[in-house]
């Protein structure tokens, strides 16, 4: 039986397999990368539709369209989908497509594990999305799953827990693969300090994933046993503590936000030098900064819990470590700006999105600093200010860099150029609308509007209306992105191998579109320039 499950043994290396089953059984990093990216794009619109519902309800004060329970489940599902279904799979998709090409390898180190990690995703999200249609509805206790509230979830509860377990397994599998690939499959001459920064940021991300996701798995396992098996981890009546869940959750949660953003740093560090036509400024300091951020990310978690009650020493410790993260983050922003200094800059779409990233992500970083100051956070915590903060770092941070990366590498993947005019439209529509969407939320938060609530007092009405309009424009603009991608896959101007005249790195030495097996034999070491050049 087992043998019949293998595909065309013997001659598989000569050509790409055909037929639709190719996608189900594939061990090819490009096939798997494409599936990750397509999946992520689909989830982006599912999660996005939920965001549109949220903004619809918030357009005016009062309850108009949905009932509060459903509103809460939209907020919860939106977050879970965007984090676990969009940004994380997208980064793994990029890792799949790019890392073997960047390090001169034929494929990922563990190709079947790779396929397994991908196929978990549609099944895990089926489990989660199924809950929208069961009695009691989808989980509504927030993506942070705090007890005791989350323990009141109805029939959806075990689906939520198992979906999280399942997704964790996928991410760990993906991370193991990336680490084994980078440490074992580099072409001769590709030393560690020659790796492109995207690869470096993924090394660190992989480590963060393997170190933090099992902790989340443990946390939700304790929720499960608390609900069904009578344990009392998070119940003071039995000697446990609901706050303990928050500690364990955020021990995962803060590294998680860096899992979402570190590969973005890598992407931006590839795009800016290309369009500034200058080598990246401070390559080594970039590597060290990422490592420092990763280390610090494990000792700042309780900045999410300043208001929950902690000994004073704890409040101080977590404030100082949090503010310390600004140092390596500042190093990175400084280096990007220094790279552009006196460069021969052009502003193609990937560069526009990368620049948008640098500016808008920095705004999110600054609001993060404000939140990191304990006494100040007492005012801002659980308000729209926090919502504004994490959307600046996630939408104009992670999503912007994902879009930039797509425009940057799409010609290499498809062999065609995308439509530059439409790309610029996409950038300007997105950038204007995203600020209309999220900037007013800072003011709402500072004025005291709480987050995760379907109704609000009338003095918040104007800003919410503005924000909702921005939200819909932003949402609609993303349809343009899909259109541009489909058009580019179908045809368009033929892309050269190097695609961008300032592009450096092994992936640009391959043909466009890239061959099915990236490097059948190791590349010529003299073509390896290294991240510093």
């Amino acid at each position, binding site marked *: 039986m087992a043998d019949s*499950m293998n*595909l065309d043994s013997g001659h598989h290396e000569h050509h790409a397999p055909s037929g639709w089953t190719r996608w189900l059984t594939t061990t090819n990093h490009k096939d798997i990368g494409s599936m990750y990216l397509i999946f992520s794009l689909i989830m982006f619109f599912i999660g996005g539709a939920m965001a549109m519902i949220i903004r619809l309800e918030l357009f005016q004060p009062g309850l108009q369209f949905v009932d509060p329970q459903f509103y809460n489940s939209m907020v919860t599902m939106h977050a879970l989908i965007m984090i676990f279904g969009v940004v994380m799979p997208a980064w793994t998709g990029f890792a799949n497509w790019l890392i073997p090409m960047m390090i001169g390898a034929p494929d990922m180190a563990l190709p079947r594990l790779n396929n*397994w990690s991908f196929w978990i995703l549609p099944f895990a999200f089926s489990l989660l999305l199924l809950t929208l249609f069961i009695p009691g509805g989808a989980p509504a206790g927030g993506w942070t799953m705090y007890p005791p509230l989350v323990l009141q979830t109805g029939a959806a509860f075990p689906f939520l827990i198992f979906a999280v377990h*399942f997704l964790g397994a996928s991410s760990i599998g993906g991370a193991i693969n990336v*680490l*084994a690939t980078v440490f074992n499959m580099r072409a001769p001459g590709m030393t560690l300090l020659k790796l492109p920064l995207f690869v470096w940021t993924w090394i660190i991300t992989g480590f963060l994933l393997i170190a933090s*996701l099992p902790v989340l798995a443990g946390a939700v396992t304790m929720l499960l046993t608390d609900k069904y098996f009578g344990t*009392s981890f998070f119940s003071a009546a039995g000697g446990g503590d609901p706050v*303990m869940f928050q500690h364990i959750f955020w021990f995962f949660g803060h590294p998680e936000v860096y899992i979402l953003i570190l590969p973005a740093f890598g992407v931006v560090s590839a795009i800016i030098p290309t369009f500034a036509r200058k080598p990246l400024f401070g390559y080594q300091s970039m590597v060290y900064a990422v490592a420092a951020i990763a280390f610090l990310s494990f000792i700042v978690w309780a900045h999410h819990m300043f208001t929950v009650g902690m000994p004073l020493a704890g409040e101080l410790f977590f404030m100082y470590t949090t503010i310390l993260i600004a140092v390596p983050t500042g190093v990175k922003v400084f280096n990007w700006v220094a790279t552009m200094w006196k460069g021969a800059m052009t502003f193609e779409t990937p560069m526009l999105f990368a620049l948008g990233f640098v500016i808008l992500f920095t705004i999110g970083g600054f609001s993060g600093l404000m939140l990191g100051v304990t006494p100040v956070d007492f005012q801002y915590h659980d308000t729209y200010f926090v919502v504004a903060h994490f959307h600046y770092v996630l939408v104009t941070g992670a999503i912007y860099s994902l879009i930039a990366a797509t425009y940057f590498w799409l010609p290499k993947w498809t062999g065609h150029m995308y439509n530059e005019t439409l790309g610029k439209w996409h950038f300007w529509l997105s950038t204007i609308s995203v600020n209309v969407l999220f900037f007013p939320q800072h003011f709402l938060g500072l004025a005291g509007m709480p987050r995760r609530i379907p109704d609000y007092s009338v003095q918040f009405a104007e800003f919410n209306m503005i924000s909702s309009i921005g939200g819909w424009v932003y949402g609609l603009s993303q349809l343009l992105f899909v259109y541009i991608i489909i058009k580019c896959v179908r045809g368009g101007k033929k892309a050269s191998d190097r695609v961008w005249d300032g592009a450096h790195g092994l992936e640009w030495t391959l043909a466009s579109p890239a061959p099915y097996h990236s490097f059948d*034999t190791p590349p010529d070491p003299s073509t390896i320039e290294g991240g510093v050049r």
Partner: protein
Amino acid sequence: MSQASNPDKYYVPEGSWWPLVSTIALFVIFLGAALTFNIGATGSPVLILGFLLLLVVFVGWFGVVIRESENGLYNSQVDVSFRMGMLWFIFSEVMFFAAFFGALYYARIYSVPWIGGEGAGEATNEFLWPEFKSAWPLLSPPSEYGFTEFKETIGAWGVPFWNTMILLTSGGTVTWAHWGLIREDRKQLIIGLALTVLLGIIFVLMQAEEYMHAYGDLGLTLNSGIYGATFFMLTGFHGFHVSMGTLMLAVILFRAMKGHFTPKNHFAFEAVAWYWHFVDVVWIGLFIFVYWI
């Protein structure tokens, strides 16, 4: 298919249905478990179906890999990839246990003393359970509702001590088996592995005995407040890992008897041995922090 003999050429395995089938198996298991939690035993056939599917996957997928390995398809680069994969996987397991050790630590150092009125917990104690005194082991939980008290804990120097000895010895026997493999002494390999499997089985049986003692005689259950919760979660997940490890060792033993493995090429043996040592180290942590101090 002569990649092994040509080390300059990279090896990429052919396509396989197993990844997809195994995700389906896991999906069915999760679905079945969720149904069982929601509607009781009516949901359990789905759960059982899922586990059967998973069994097929284990036999099938590992079968393919073993056959490919024995046919010499894997070059040394593949071997290193497997090793790295296994080490990172074990690291993820370490972090999984860290969550539960963290919970134990938090309960002992913070939550129980706070509920008992120490530190910042003065008001907590006064308003919630003024009678409650902080102690560890916590024989009676703060609230008398919904939790069972228990008489005493399982002491460190009885069965747990002997179990420690058993696991430590089994770490030795598996290493001895490894030496046998490297020196091409099949007999030593097989005897060493058989001893290790046997010790694993004895450990699990003794642990099961302990659980029955705890539930039956001491009244110590999952429901015995935070002590019972941390005790059974930590030892339970560990026991599960020992069982898995024993099963894997048994497979390795079986393969060794069929003549698999060479002194140079025995990734599967080493992976399982590493896993076994990991389980061993976790036990030491358990023995010290759960049973002893």
